[in-house]
C-alpha cells in the first residue's frame, strides 16, 4: 500500500474507534478492507497489530489486497494480553456460538454493569442459539470491569464477553 493510503487508513481507524464503531467493511473493487474492533483492545495495541499486517500486505492496491483483520484481531486479542489495563483480568468467554443479549428481555435492565460485584455462577448475560436462550454464568467471583460485546452482537466460540477483576 502507498504511504498515503496507510495514513488515510490510520485516520479512518482513529475515527472509527473514537466513534465506537465495531465493524467496518469497504469493497471498492481495487481495494477491499474489513475491520473488526475488539472492544477490549487498547488503541495502541490495535494499531500496532494493524501496522504489522499492513507491512506484509501486497504492494499494489490494484491487486485488490484484502486486509482481513476480523480473525486475527479478535482471536489474537484472546491469545495475547493486550494493553496493560487488561493484564490480570479474567475473561469470561462464550461457550457457544450465537447472539449476545445483555438483559433478560428487550428494554429490561442489564444483568450486570461495570463496577458490579458478581458471584461464581451468577448469570451475567444470555446467548441465543437456535431460538434457545442460554444463560451465561460467570465462572469466577469478582468485579465486572467491562462488557466486551454489544447487545445483539454475533458471538463465536471462545469469544471474550466480560472482563472481571478477581479479588
Amino acid at each position, binding site marked *: 500500500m502507498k504511504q498515503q493510503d496507510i495514513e488515510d487508513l490510520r485516520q479512518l481507524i482513529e475515527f472509527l474507534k473514537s466513534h465506537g464503531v465495531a465493524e467496518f467493511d469497504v469493497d471498492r473493487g481495487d481495494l477491499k478492507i474489513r475491520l473488526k474492533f475488539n472492544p477490549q483492545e487498547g488503541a495502541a495495541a490495535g494499531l500496532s497489530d494493524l501496522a504489522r499486517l499492513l507491512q506484509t500486505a501486497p504492494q499494489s492496491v490494484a491487486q485488490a489486497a484484502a486486509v*482481513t483483520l*476480523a*480473525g486475527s484481531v479478535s*482471536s489474537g486479542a484472546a491469545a495475547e494480553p493486550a494493553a496493560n489495563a487488561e493484564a490480570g483480568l479474567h475473561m469470561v468467554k462464550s461457550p*457457544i*456460538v*450465537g*447472539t449476545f443479549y445483555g438483559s433478560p428481555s428487550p428494554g429490561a435492565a442489564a444483568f450486570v454493569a461495570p463496577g458490579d460485584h458478581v458471584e461464581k455462577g451468577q448469570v451475567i448475560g444470555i446467548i441465543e*442459539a*437456535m431460538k434457545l436462550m442460554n444463560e451465561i454464568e460467570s465462572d469466577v467471583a469478582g468485579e465486572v470491569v467491562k462488557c466486551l460485546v454489544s447487545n445483539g452482537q*454475533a*458471538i*463465536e*466460540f*471462545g*469469544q471474550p464477553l466480560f472482563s472481571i477483576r478477581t479479588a
Partner: protein
Amino acid sequence: MFRKVLVANRGEIALRVLNACRELGIRTVAVYSEADRNSLHVRFADEAICIGPPRASDSYLNVPAVISAAEIADVEAIHPGYGLLSENANFAEVCRASNIKFIGPPPEVTRLMGEKEKARQAMKKAKVPILPGSDGILTSAEEAREWAEKVGYPVILKAKAGGGGRGMRIVRDAEDLPNLFHAAFTEAANAFGNGELYMEKFIEQPRHIEFQVLADEHGSVASLFERECSIQRRHQKLIEEAPSLQITPKMREEVGRTLCKCMSEIGYQNAGTVEFLMDASHQLFFIEMNTRIQVEHPVTEAITGVDLVKAQLRIASGERLDAILPAKLEMRGHAIECRINAEHPVRFTPSAGKITAFNVPGGNGIRVDTALYAEGVIPPYYDSLIAKLIAHGVDRAEAMAKMERALNQFIVQGIDTSISLHEEIFQDAGFRAGDFDTGYMERFLAARAEAEKQPA
C-alpha cells in the same frame, strides 16, 4: 443462486467448496475449531466463525454450533463437504427445520442409503445387481447350506452383531459349511453376545469400482462414468483412477442407464456415488451408496470437464441438469489421483507438526488440492490427508508419466508423508499394467517387507 453459503467442513475440501462458491459469486462463511485458526479455509473465506475446541465432536460435528453459526451469519445454504456431517440425516433435517438449504439429497434418501439392508433392497428393486445373500438371519447350518447353494460358493458367513472381522468365516466347499457355521456362531456369541449369522457371496480378489451420479431437483439424473479405487490399505483408498480399465463402453452405458433409473425412483438429488465390487468374471455387485461429494471427485472432473462442486451448488439452488451439463457427456483421457497423507511411508505412523518446506508440483495436467502451506501446522485431531495430487493425460500411460514427475517434485519437509510410497507403487509392474484388485496393497507391502529383509 445463493447469496451466502456456509461450509461445514475443514481442510482441503472446505477450501475446494469455498473456491467453487467464490467463482460463482457466492459469499462464503467458514467455521473452524480452535485448532484450525490459521487454516487456509479460514483465511480465504469472506467470514469465519469459531465454533468450538479442537476435537471434532465438540466443533465440526457439533450440530447446534454449526447451525448457530449459520444463523448468525445469515446464510442461505450449508455445504457439508465429505465425512463429518455430510451423511448425517439428522443434520440435514435440522437444516431443513431451520430454513437452511442442505446441499445434498433430502434427509429421507440419506437415511435410506445409510441403512445397508434397505439400500440393498432399494437397489434390487431397481434391477441394480446386488451382492447375493441370505434374506436375513440363518437359523441353522442346513438353512445356511440351502442359501449357499443358491448364492454359489464361495460364501462368507457374517455375524449380524459383528465387526472387526470376528464371527466371519469364508466357506469355499459345501462339506466345510457345517463346521464353519458353528465356529462362526460360537465366536460371534462369545465376542458380541449374539451368534446370529447372515450370508453374502464372497468375492475373491474383488475390484472396487464406483459410479458418479448427479441428480437435479426436477427429476433428471446423469451418470458421470466410473472410478477405479482398488488401491486401498485397510479399506482406505490411496489411489483412484478414471476411467476404469475393467469397464467396457457397453457396461458403462448399461450401468449408467440402470443407475439413472434407480436414482430417479428413489428420488435422489444432488451428487452421489454408487459403489460396486467386481468379481473375476467382470460382474458388478452393489455394495453401498455415498450420498455426498467424494474425496476422489477430481478424477471425474478431469475426464468429463464438469465441476462437480459447482454442479452441487447449482443443483441445490434449483438449476436444471441440462443447463449444468453439456448436451453429450464424454470422457477425455485418463486421470489418476494420489492421496498424500501425513504418515510415515513405511510404518504408517501419523505425523503431526509444522511443515518447514512445501513445494507443490505444477505443470500441464497436474492439479493439487491442498489446504496446507509452508509454516503450516498439522493438528493431531483430524484425518491425515494433506493433499490430493491429480494427473490427467491423454491416456493412462501419459497420466502415469505426469504423476511420477509430479510426485518427484512434491517436496514436503518437517513431517512424514506418503509421497515416497506412491513413487514406489508407480514403479511397480503390476500397478503399471493395471493388474490389481483390493488385495494389491497388502501384497505390495508384504513383498516390500520381504525385500527389505534380504541382504542388500
